[in-house]
């Protein structure tokens, strides 16, 4: 119904409502009826006491607003209905009010009292919506009322109302900027809020009102980091962007040394020598400085990086981009790589998203080329891409080009040149030019290719090639006089002015290389001078001048003719130039000084042009921002500050104990009085946000726990250096608090559930205290347990050498994680029967999700089979399958890629690389007559139809070796020849890594004793001293994954064989001196024995 009514209003279409007709039929309605008359019916409907009529009228009015029609004269009639009972009418009235209040300020005031009443409503949602509409009415008179309402709402007990208050802040600020100081107070208050619901909105308000007040963030920094993952997606974007700026002012540059090195290298590439030496001086200075002070990352800096990383997996492109820019601007160089994958993923999205992402990738790929190199092929262009996407992809491809991949890239470019999209072809030609200037090896190839394009039928293509060739030739003109000659001939055909101008410039510049042709070209040009474009005319004058100086005998008259023509040209630039040049080159009595130097002026050696990416140096804008995209500062853009030279005091982020705890302590002494205030604290901040946190991120216990309840204080302690004393006093307090809390529970039965999480945390925390660990230590431990990636934990431990020592000590006595969980589960069971009916569903979620999460955490859970993981480490050894000489030019190599073979999980993936070194095509490469031991199977790679000369192709085949090191023999056939080859796997490649916990490892090891265990003593090699070296040696010898281990003298690894899935467990225990003991447990003794041999060899080398 709304459908018809919306479009009938102009015709007064009340026929479907049963209203009397209002005297204008559809035919005359649109043109002659005046506005007020047309709206009469609406007014009458609004005044009626039937809700359905009012609704109908409002719908039609809203439809008018939607189409941009003016409905302001209905204001009095509409505003009367602001207190209407019907909720839809009310909402539509709000829509109308917000739209027109600015124009009808006096009348709008009539509605204010309704909202003021709404602000006092017991229902939080009504309070929120009243505040929302009230703050949206842009009438200056009500500023004090709004201010009051916001202040009140900011301390409302409902987080939803507080969120609305945060939203209202920028509205009021835009209405009256004088209120800034008061608003900052409100922002400060709301920033301290602990609920995820408020966090995003208040940071948004902060960014709009007072982005320069970075000091307000200090105290909330750690909380924001910890809440981040649970904040709604839009809030995440705003918070991450703000934190990027914050981190830039508070932490030291993690890449201080690298970035300078890199920069100087880049400068050397583009810039002149002078700069380089300067840079060197600076570099030395910095190096000296760095020596004095080794860089240690601030734990808060690490916290930010760690807590944002999971958000790379967000479904929201804006969030992913925000994290990517944060890593790009803040992370140590070695860690930035993680964002590449996510960015490439975004490229699958809508074309607008692609457009923005590609812009950012283009900038990043200049600074950090290595990051995107593995994804080169994802930037290949499809004919269906929109032109703007094509051009950006081209940009990225060009940035990624280097000596190793240039041949593939150029081959791609060759297909692009043939595209039907001519703008894109032009861009491709420029890209080729840039590759040629940047990579010396391919310059001649590119030049030849471009010269071939000169005979292209499309004029645009030719013109673009000419322009690019001109630039390339400037680099080494002497060798290419034939190209210049060829281009001289083109002047007869090419009409594109830019190209003509380029050719003329070239001939003029290198006229000594083409002494015969140059004057002839000038002659032709002189003939057509009057019909040329301005840009061409200028170059003709230029050519004439140069020829006059070098070859005045032949060209004197021609030059004068050209100059005379130019003297009377319509364009004043050309007239001006002609006059100038005549004075300069034609010797007269008056012109003295300069004409002597004319030759030097015109024929001076010019530096070769630099093809620069338009994205170079764009990274001084914060990536992902509007300003970066436009390459111009947008209004309201906050500069990304430079890294500070000295780290500001990190203790500003420590949160005082008193500030965080008071609500707990107070409640004990004045329990009854406080009850009212206390209630919201539990039911909202804990009951609503607490559970999510604990449910979603239980495995990262320590860091997440801080976000709940009053545990803020502890966090502050752990970050700073003086935690020992702090913690001591704190744990004392905690003990005191305990009995009090039980009392609280009695008084507030409905908050039992929500309190539970706090309770549980407290207990855990106490236990943790008992084993005297600081939270950061356990964080490390849990991360190394939960995440399978060794590299990460290693990095962490490297960056925090001090904590590592502590870790070793604490880890030697294994932490009793098990009992902790049991306790919490028991607790849950205790509390489930009591919750109040209103919160029941939520409670259920919490308990269930918590339970499952905990279950996931429990490491001995037998239901969980060891999960396979992708290899954490790969240094791939290549073996030769067919030598170049025996293969008559066909060389074949293979390696074990350690990737799972997707077609059959029992097969080992073997990556085979064919390279054709002959100068004929090798056709139909395939496998024939595999001669395999019984039980072995082979999945052949698809036949390679053609392998062009000089090309290399990689394919993957799968072989089921049946867990034996027997060789797989087969014939490798080309169209003409057959070669007998065999692949023999090292024993270490017959397995794939599995992830298991320490406990699982021990349990499994217990099953594999006796005959299945092989012990061997060994002496470590010279270079096997560090942890890293040992792990690396073992993992490169065999495809194993590391298992976390409590002792620092022990290294454990696990894998299972590919074919039969039997477990392989490896333990290396280092002893005094260079001695060590190696233990391998494996059901298959043969494999075990062989593996021992291999690892022994690897370690003792």
């Amino acid at each position, binding site marked *: 119904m*709304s*459908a018809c009514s*919306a479009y009938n209003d102009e015709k007064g279409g009340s026929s479907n409502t049963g209203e009397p007709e209002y005297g204008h039929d559809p035919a005359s309605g649109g043109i002659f009826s005046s506005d007020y008359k047309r709206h009469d019916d609406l007014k009458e409907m609004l005044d009626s006491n*039937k809700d359905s009529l009012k*609704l109908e009228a409002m719908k039609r009015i*809203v439809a008018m*607003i*939607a189409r*941009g029609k003016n409905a302001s004269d209905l204001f009095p009639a509409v505003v009367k209905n602001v207190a209407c009972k019907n*909720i839809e009418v009310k909402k539509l009235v709000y*829509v109308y009010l917000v739209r027109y209040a*600015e124009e009808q300020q006096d009348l709008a005031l009539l509605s204010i009292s309704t909202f003021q009443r709404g602000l006092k409503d017991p229902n939080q*949602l*009504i309070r929120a919506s009243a505040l*929302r509409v009230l703050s*949206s009415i842009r009438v200056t008179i009500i500023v004090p009322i709004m201010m009051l309402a916001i202040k009140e709402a900011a301390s409302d007990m409902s*987080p939803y109302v507080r969120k609305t208050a945060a*939203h209202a802040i*920028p509205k009021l600020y835009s209405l009256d900027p004088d209120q800034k100081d008061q608003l900052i107070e409100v922002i400060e208050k709301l920033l301290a809020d602990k609920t995820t619901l408020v966090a995003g909105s208040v940071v*948004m308000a902060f960014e709009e009102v007072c982005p320069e007040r970075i000091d307000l963030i200090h105290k909330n920094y750690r909380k924001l980091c910890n809440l981040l*993952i649970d904040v709604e*997606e*839009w809030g995440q974007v705003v918070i991450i962007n703000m934190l990027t700026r914050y981190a830039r002012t508070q932490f030291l540059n993690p890449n201080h040394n690298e970035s300078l090195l890199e920069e100087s290298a880049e400068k050397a590439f583009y810039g002149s020598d002078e700069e380089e030496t300067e840079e060197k001086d600076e570099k030395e200075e910095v190096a000296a400085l760095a020596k004095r002070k080794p860089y240690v990352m601030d734990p808060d800096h690490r916290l930010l990086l760690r807590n944002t990383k999971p958000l790379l*997996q*967000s*479904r929201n492109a804006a969030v992913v981009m925000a994290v990517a820019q944060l890593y790009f601007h803040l992370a140590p160089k070695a860690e930035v790589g993680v964002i590449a994958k*996510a960015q490439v993923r975004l490229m*699958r999205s*809508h074309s607008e*998203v692609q*457009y*923005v*992402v590609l812009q950012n990738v283009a900038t990043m790929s200049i600074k950090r080329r290595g990051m995107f190199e593995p994804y080169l092929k994802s930037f290949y262009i*499809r004919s269906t891409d*929109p032109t*703007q996407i094509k051009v950006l992809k081209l940009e990225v491809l060009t940035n990624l080009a280097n000596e190793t991949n240039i041949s593939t890239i150029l081959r791609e470019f060759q*297909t692009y040149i043939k595209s039907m999209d001519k703008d894109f072809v032009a861009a491709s030609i420029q890209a080729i030019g840039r590759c040629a200037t940047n990579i010396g090896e391919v310059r001649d190839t590119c030049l030849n290719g471009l010269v071939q394009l000169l005979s292209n039928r499309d004029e645009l293509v030719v013109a673009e090639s000419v322009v690019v060739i001109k630039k390339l030739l400037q680099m080494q003109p002497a060798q290419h006089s034939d190209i210049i000659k060829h281009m001289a001939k083109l002047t007869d055909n090419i009409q594109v002015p830019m190209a003509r101008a380029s050719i003329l410039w070239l001939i003029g510049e290198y006229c000594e290389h083409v002494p015969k042709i140059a004057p002839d070209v000038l002659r032709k040009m002189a003939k057509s001078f009057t019909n040329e474009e301005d840009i061409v005319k200028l170059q003709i004058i230029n050519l004439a001048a140069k020829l006059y100086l070098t070859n005045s005998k032949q060209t004197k008259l021609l030059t004068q003719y050209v100059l005379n023509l130019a003297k009377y040209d319509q364009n004043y630039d050309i007239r001006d130039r002609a006059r100038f040049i005549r004075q300069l080159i034609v010797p007269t009595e008056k012109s003295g000084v300069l004409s002597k130097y004319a030759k030097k002026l015109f024929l001076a050696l010019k530096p070769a042009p630099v093809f620069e990416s338009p994205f170079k140096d764009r990274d001084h804008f914060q990536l992902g921002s*509007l300003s970066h995209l436009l390459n111009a500062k*947008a*209004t309201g853009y906050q500069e990304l500050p430079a890294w500070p030279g000295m780290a500001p005091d990190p203790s500003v982020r420590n949160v005082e104990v008193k500030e965080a705890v008071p609500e707990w302590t107070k409640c004990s002494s004045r329990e009854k009085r406080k009850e009212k205030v206390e209630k919201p604290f539990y039911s909202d901040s804990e009951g*609503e946000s607490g*559970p999510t946190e604990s*449910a979603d991120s*239980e*495995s*990262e216990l320590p860091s997440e726990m801080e976000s709940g309840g009053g545990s803020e204080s502890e966090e502050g302690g752990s970050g700073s250096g003086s935690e020992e004393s702090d913690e001591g006093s704190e744990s004392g307090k905690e003990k005191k608090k305990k009995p009090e809390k039980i009392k609280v529970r009695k008084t507030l039965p409905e908050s039992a559930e929500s309190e539970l999480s706090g309770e549980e945390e407290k207990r855990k925390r106490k236990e943790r205290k008992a084993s005297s660990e600081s939270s950061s230590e356990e964080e490390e431990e849990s991360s190394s347990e939960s995440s399978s990636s060794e590299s990460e934990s290693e990095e962490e431990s490297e960056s925090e050498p001090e904590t590592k020592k502590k870790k070793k000590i604490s880890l030697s006595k294994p932490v009793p994680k098990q009992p902790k969980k049991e306790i919490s589960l028991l607790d849950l069971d205790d509390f489930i029967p009591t919750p109040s009916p209103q919160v029941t*569903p*939520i409670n*259920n979620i919490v308990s*269930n999700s918590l*339970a*499952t999460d905990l279950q*996931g955490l429990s490491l001995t859970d037998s239901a969980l089979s060891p999960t*396979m993981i992708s290899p954490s480490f790969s240094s791939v050894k290549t073996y030769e399958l067919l030598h170049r000489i025996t293969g008559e030019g066909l060389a074949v190599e293979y390696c074990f*890629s350690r990737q799972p*073979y997707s077609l059959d*999980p029992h097969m080992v993936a073997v990556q085979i690389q064919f390279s054709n070194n002959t100068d004929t095509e090798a056709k139909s490469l395939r496998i024939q007559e595999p001669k395999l031991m019984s039980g072995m199977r082979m999945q052949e790679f*698809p036949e390679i*139809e053609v392998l062009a000369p000089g090309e290399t192709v990689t394919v*993957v085949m799968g072989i089921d070796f049946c867990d034996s090191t027997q060789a797989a023999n087969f014939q490798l056939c080309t169209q003409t020849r057959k070669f007998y080859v065999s692949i023999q796997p090292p024993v270490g490649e017959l397995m794939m890594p599995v992830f298991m916990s320490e406990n699982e490892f021990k349990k499994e090891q217990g099953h594999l004793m006796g005959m299945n265990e092989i012990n061997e003593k060994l002496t470590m090699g010279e270079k096997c001293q560090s942890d890293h070296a040992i792990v690396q040696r073992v993992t490169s010898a065999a495809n194993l994954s590391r298992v976390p281990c409590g002792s620092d003298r022990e290294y454990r690894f696990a894998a299972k064989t590919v074919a039969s899935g039997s477990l392989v467990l490896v333990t290396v225990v280092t002893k005094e001196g260079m001695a060590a003991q190696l233990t391998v447990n494996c059901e298959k003794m043969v494999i075990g024995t062989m593996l021992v041999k291999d690892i022994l060899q690897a370690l003792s080398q």
Partner: protein
Amino acid sequence: MIHSLFLVNSSGDIFLEKHWKSVVSRSVCDYFFEAQERASEPENVAPVIPTPHHYLISVYRHKIFFVAVIQSEVPPLFVIEFLHRVVDTFQDYFGVCSEAAVKDNVVVVYELLEEMLDNGFPLATESNILKELIKPPTILRTVVNTITGSTNVGEQLPTGQLSVVPWRRTGVKYTNNEAYFDVVEEIDAIIDKSGSTVTAEIQGVVDASVKLTGMPDLTLSFVNPRLLDDVSFHPCVRFKRWEAERILSFIPPDGNFRLLSYHVSSQNLVAIPVYVKHSISFREGSSLGHFEITIGPKQTMGKAVEGVLVTSQMPKAVLNMNLTCTQGAYTFDPVTKMLSWDVGKINPQKLPSLKGSMSLQTGASKPDENPTINIQCKIQQLALSGLKVNRLDMYGEKYKPFKGIKYMTKAGKFQVRT
């Protein structure tokens, strides 16, 4: 943040405007129209257009431009992502997002936009919350509303926004409890002239349709989770659990949603499901060209290839095509020069082929490039990467749900260069 929104149709009419702050005159769209005119295709309109006082950020979907007006710095992706979310919501509400649908439901659209943004900052974008606030129009409800005068706006105030799981409504009830998961993989590939793969990668999604009573807590595990190289999740998935165990654990939203999208590592492991044999040639000086393509299955693991559609943008010089196909039907649009051949199912015994001649513009020179061939196809019951769901378990509710998993492989951006 977002100041105003204009909806513009392809002929350049503004058919809806909405302002969240003070009113911005619709003349600001003139800058957009200029850009629209300059671009040859609607897809080529730049997504971000700077004007003297504002910035216009637009997305183009369903033949409608959604133009957002921005006044100050904001991450462009923030706006673009939001606009796409608006389109998705419209589609969710009205079935289609077209100009007609928006005009027919203008009031609902307005109410939605009002709820989605507050002062230009996203407020409620989760479809579950929105559906509690504003009920989607159905024919039945429209009829009932007309008779009884009741409304589309939810009588109850929404509680979803206050929940810890904002994506799920409370008190969901079904008589048949079902949870269906579709594993859909798309293969993107570029095949070069000689038939070898230039690049190929698999992108997959797990779409779910969950209709379960109460607050179920699901876990979904894969047989071979290592295949997944890069993943992105619906916010309901517990990330830590995935990190540690490679198990998807989540409280599902009610109804249809995308649980997971993933990328399979682009090693050379990708099996190419179809191949194309082609011979397309233009002769210099002749007004006739030869055209022949044959399509056949390659590595399909024994499954049938269905729904094959071949399209190709022919060069401008081609006036008409005179072809015969052994299967399906073909069309050639002489205006857009688009050839499309609807093949249907491929029978491996008798491969479908399309051949004949092209008539070229007389006098026009031979086109430089042969057209690229785009292929769409699908294979049922197969996930090309080999991904397999191991098991699905439900906790937290007593009943036994009906579970189902379906696999499908589709050709995504599958292009053959000729």
